Structures are given as C-alpha cells and as structure tokens.
C-alpha cells in the first residue's frame, strides 16, 4: 500500500519521530513522509511511533491508498526531496 504520513509533534520529541519515520518512509517535506509500505510494517512503525508520542498533545495522520496509481501528486515551487529509487 502507498501512504502519506504527516505528524504534528511537540518540539522536544520531533527529532526522535523524524529519525523513526525515516527508517520506513521517504521524507519529502517537514513533518511529511510518503512511500510504499506493507500493512504489517506500517503497524509495526505506528506501534513504535506511539511510544514516542505524547497522546495528549501529538498526533499522526496516515493517508492510505491501495496503489500509488490512485494518487496524483502535484508540486508547486521547489521540490524539497524526490522519492525516486535512482540516485
């Protein structure tokens, strides 16, 4: 499945969350990630993310799509980082 993950995390925990998410998804913008991920791996990732969060203050939103083809991406201005697998 293809997901877009955005988070809103308190300043003191945000770096930890960034490092955690980078292991699973491609960073594209501040607090935004996207990428292909399996259901099981997403669960694993969110479980661990929940440990980092303070659930009174922080939140994570995951947009899921069955296939990347169902998603149209439009970028205005400067692309911070691409998700291509050719470097």
């Amino acid at each position, binding site marked *: 499945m293809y997901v877009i993950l955005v988070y809103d995390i308190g300043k003191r925990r945000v770096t930890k969350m960034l*490092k955690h998410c980078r292991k699973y998804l491609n960073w594209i913008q501040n607090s935004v990630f996207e990428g292909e991920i399996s259901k099981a791996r997403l669960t694993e990732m969110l479980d661990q993310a929940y440990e980092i969060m303070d659930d009174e203050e922080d939140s994570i939103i995951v947009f899921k799509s069955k296939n990347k083809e169902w998603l149209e991406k439009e970028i205005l201005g400067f692309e911070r980082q691409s998700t291509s697998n050719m470097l």
Partner: protein
Amino acid sequence: MKKTYYLFNPGRLSRKDNTLKFTPVDEDGKEGQPRYLPVENVNDLYVFGSLDANSALYNFLGKQSIAVHFFDYYEHYTGSFMPKDYLLAGKMQIAQTQYYLSAKKRMPLARSFVRGAALNMLKNLQYYNRREKDLNQTIGQIEALMLQIPEYNKIDQLMGLEGNIRQAYYQAFDTIINDFEMGTRTKQPPQNEVNTLISFGNMMCYTACLGQIYHTQLNPTISFLHEPGYRRYSLALDLAEIFKPLLVDRTIFSLLNKRQVKSSDFRHELNRCVLKDSARKEFVKAFEEKLSDTIQHRSLGRSVSYKHLIKLECYKLTKHLLGAEGYVPFKAWW
C-alpha cells in the same frame, strides 16, 4: 514490496540513525543534499557510480540482509556484497550436489534450461511474426534445433546447441529492431549499440536472478547447465537463460523501437561501444518496470510480478532436487 535502489551518482553511503544516508558528491568534491533511504524498504542496492562506505555500513547492511551489487565503469558486473546466508539447509545442499555429480540426474535439468530458454525465444519471435515482421525462417530453424535437445548426452554438446539456437535467434534481431543494425553478437567488448544493450541487460538479469536465489535455500554456486567455476554464482547463469528473452530482449525491443533510446545515447570508444548515463538510466528504469509488471499466473490463480516469477522458478527447482515434483521450465503463455 521492498525496492531496489540504483546509485548512479558518486557519493557516500553511511549508517545514520539506524537507516541509510546517501550524500552525493560532485566532481569538485562538494557534498550535495543528503537523501535518506528507508532501510526497512530497501531490498538491494545497485552501485554504478563510485561509492564511499565504511565497514560499519556493511555490518548494518548485513544485519538488514541487504545485498549490494557493484559494476565497473563499463557497466560490467564486478561482484556483490552478500549478507550471510540466512536460509541454510544442509539437506538442500547435498541434494543439489548429488544432482550435479550424477550425469544421469544433471542432464535432464540442463536440457530443461535450454528448452525453457528456446521456448521463450520462440515466444518473442512469434510475437513479432504476428506484427508484420517475417520471422518464419528463424522460427523454423530454432524449432528444428530444439528437436535435437534430447539427443545430446554431454554438457558441452548441449552448450554448443544452446549457442546455435541463440545465434539463430540473434539473427532475427535485425528484422525486429527498426533503426539499428546488430550484425553478429559481440561481447567483451560489445561493438555496437544493440550488442551493448544486450550485454548490459543480460548482466542486470543475472543479478536479478542471483538476488532471488539468495532468498531460497539453493546454493548459487552449484549449477547444472553452466559448469560451476570459481568466484561466480553460476546457478544464476542457468536461471538467467530462461528469463533473458522475457526480461532483457523485450525491454531492448521496446526501448529501441519506441525511440526511448537513440543513437545519441551511445558513445563509441576505441574498439567498443558504451552506454551514456542517460541511456543507462532509461534502461534500468524500463527493466525495473518490467520486473514489477504483473501477470495473472495460471496455476497459482493470482497476479505475480516477473521478479516473483524468478523466485517461483527457484522453488520449482528446489522441489525437483528434493524429489517432490519434476522441474518444468517456465514458459511464457502470452
């Protein structure tokens, strides 16, 4: 599904925060913006540019079972960093060796590989034959050669026959491909555009097969058609025979006939023809798309990617070696 990453730019790959960080470096030694690769989603790495890395990184890659394949300036496969085998099986190893040692057991397998390769070549030819390219003569020639497969009882004779089939097949390339001439097959070094693409493609196919064998219990060094040698994974060569027509040749035909790769994408050097970066990327992209393309599998009744098809082939081989089910080479049915 985990992804393959292709590193074309020179740079430094390092372990950072338990994931991978790639920092591109330009010709003046200036570092570019780093890119983090999600380690949980990396299957393997193909390194075409020059790469800086230290042992901490390789330890990390080993733990994550990520293989790294290296290619030299001329895009020859030079070797792989393979993480330690994680599916060890002594029983499998012994069975595989027994099949290699006994000519009676080895020949049927070797014949299967040759037959599988020839059948898939025929599929390609028949496809273009239906599209206003007259290939009847080559098809007849290959079919005649295939009849001889069961007659041979020595590996080197069989390899010779395989060579003849392939030669006939390559002659048809000039008819299939519109704007390029292939002439005869030349390698080490390839002399013209089509030959360069074939060499590059075959090498990509070989590495893809090796990558899949790694995820099974087979030992990649013990092969049946090719002679197992030193310092090479010859079982990958055996498997690649079957998939080269489907993965490599079809990609080449479509890239050239759709003019996605043009003659300006090649550089002629002394005695050889080399792919420019643009063409190399174009080919890798098309090849990658092909690998992730899915087909409806007949006996499994679900859709399966070409990449997975290679693994299924390994499983069939495993079953054959353990005496569970006879090996029938994969044949395209479309």
